[in-house]
């Protein structure tokens, strides 16, 4: 192809090809008006949005998403542990790492009735548990002399211990006008960790061993009249048990039955967590497919 030299500069010449292409090419001593057969054309400058820049933008976006997910979404909006409250209403409280309640689930009909219309999202688990207990009392589920079992469950033992302490502190007030015994335990443990005896005259916190000794003492004082001193407690009734097994045998329908119930709760807990992981997977999918709107939702929740 022949090119017509249109303009010359020290480093290049503007040439016009027969095909109409107007190019800058190396100036091998050309003069305007020359016709040349071969040229060394200029290489176009790389586009501003090159591959490197695109990759950098993608990497930055991925880093932002990771920060949002691991720094904000996961600790605040994903279940990290749970608290199971058993009165007669059975309720599972799913809690985030930052102690925010993310989900409430009624495990029986009474439990579902108890949580109906209850606003729990984002509130601390101890406050929710205390309020649910008061609610159970006002709805007639929790009677004077009744007991409440709270079972804390998480893969993180440190988090479980903190959650148990927070619950013990918030339950300290008990329920107004009623004597209630609150058992705090860790999921899978053979016996409760802490027992709170809350009554109209104030409340007292015991370790389970102390509580057992106290019940044995009370039973001895009551003599053999068959008083129901220990009726309000779930496990102990009369003679002081030497071991949890003996105590379990004495109680009949007490801790062993409760232990079986705990087994069921583990099953339901694992089911609930698997469903939460599914929900989480869907929400992450939604986060990527939904684009701005999902991120906007998270930022909205943060706000």
């Amino acid at each position, binding site marked *: 192809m022949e090119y017509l030299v249109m303009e010359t500069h020290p*480093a290049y010449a503007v040439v016009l090809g027969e095909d109409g*292409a*107007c190019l800058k090419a190396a100036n091998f001593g050309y003069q*305007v008006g020359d016709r040349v057969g071969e040229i060394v054309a200029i290489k176009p400058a790389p586009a501003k949005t090159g591959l490197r820049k695109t990759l950098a933008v993608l990497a930055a976006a991925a880093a932002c998403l990771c920060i949002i997910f691991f720094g904000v979404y996961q600790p605040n909006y994903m279940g990290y542990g749970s608290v199971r409250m058993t009165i007669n209403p059975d309720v599972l409280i799913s809690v985030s790492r930052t102690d925010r309640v993310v989900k409430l689930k009624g495990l029986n009909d009474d439990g579902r009735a108890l949580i109906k219309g209850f606003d729990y999202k984002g509130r601390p688990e101890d406050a929710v548990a205390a309020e649910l207990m008061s609610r159970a009392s006002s709805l007639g589920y929790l009677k004077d002399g009744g007991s409440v079992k709270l079972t804390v469950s998480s893969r993180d033992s440190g988090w479980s211990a903190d959650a148990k302490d927070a619950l013990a502190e918030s339950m300290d007030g008990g329920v107004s006008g009623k004597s209630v015994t609150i058992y705090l335990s860790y999921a899978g443990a053979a016996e409760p960790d802490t027992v709170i005896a809350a009554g109209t005259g104030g409340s007292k916190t015991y370790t389970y061993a102390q509580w057992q000794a106290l019940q044995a003492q009370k039973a001895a004082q009551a003599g053999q009249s068959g008083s129901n001193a220990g009726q309000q407690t779930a496990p102990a009734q009369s003679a002081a048990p030497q071991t949890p097994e003996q105590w379990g045998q004495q109680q009949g329908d007490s801790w062993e039955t409760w232990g079986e119930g705990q087994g069921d709760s583990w099953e339901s807990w694992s089911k609930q967590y698997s469903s939460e992981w599914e929900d989480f997977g869907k929400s992450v999918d939604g986060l990527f497919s939904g684009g701005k709107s999902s991120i906007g939702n998270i930022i909205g929740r943060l706000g």
Partner: protein
Amino acid sequence: MSEEHQIVSRVREAKSDPAAADGFIREYMGFIKAETAKFTGRVPQEGRDDELSVAMLAFYESILAYDASRGPFLRFAALSMRSRLIDYARAENRRGAAVSYDEPAEEGGTALKDCIADENDAVAGAADRLSARKEIGEFSLRLSDFGLTLSDVADNCPRQERTFSACRRVIECAKAHPELLKELEKTKKLPMAALSELSGVERKTLERHRRYLLAILLAYTNGFEIIRRHLGQLKGGTR
């Protein structure tokens, strides 16, 4: 440090201003020659060594492609020139051994160019060149009425084959409708809507290559016989 800053600001200016680019290149001729000499192993001479012309073009490319993230400009330009010279040397090797007209035809004898008969009519060629130069000068003046230079036109020429073909369809369409060329002369504006509708090319493509299309269509108006004849083979097909 401040010298590097100064160079960077000069480069930034040269990117958009061809005159500033020319001045900058002239100023750094010593550097360009030194880098060329490193490659060729001899001191290059202006107007004689093709390698120097290629290195100058590479230096100009460096000006256009440079940004601060690429490190110091002169190092970037040196690398760019070296890779361009390597490409050029490889292309020359592929083409086979070329013999310079300045080389002697026999040992110690006269130069080759003095022994080969020139089949071209030198006088006619010179006259043709002169008239082409005159016409191109007029064309440049005409372009300046539209606020354009030939460098602008070259920068705006489509690089991709598909876009280039689309532009050629637009030019063919305008050639077939002389009233559009008249409208261009009269209004000094591309009749975008009509061209887009008649050629079937998207208006966005026309707008993106407006300066190139304007220059080529201007060449098809009266008064630019030599350029028009040169573009005689322009058809709506592929390049």
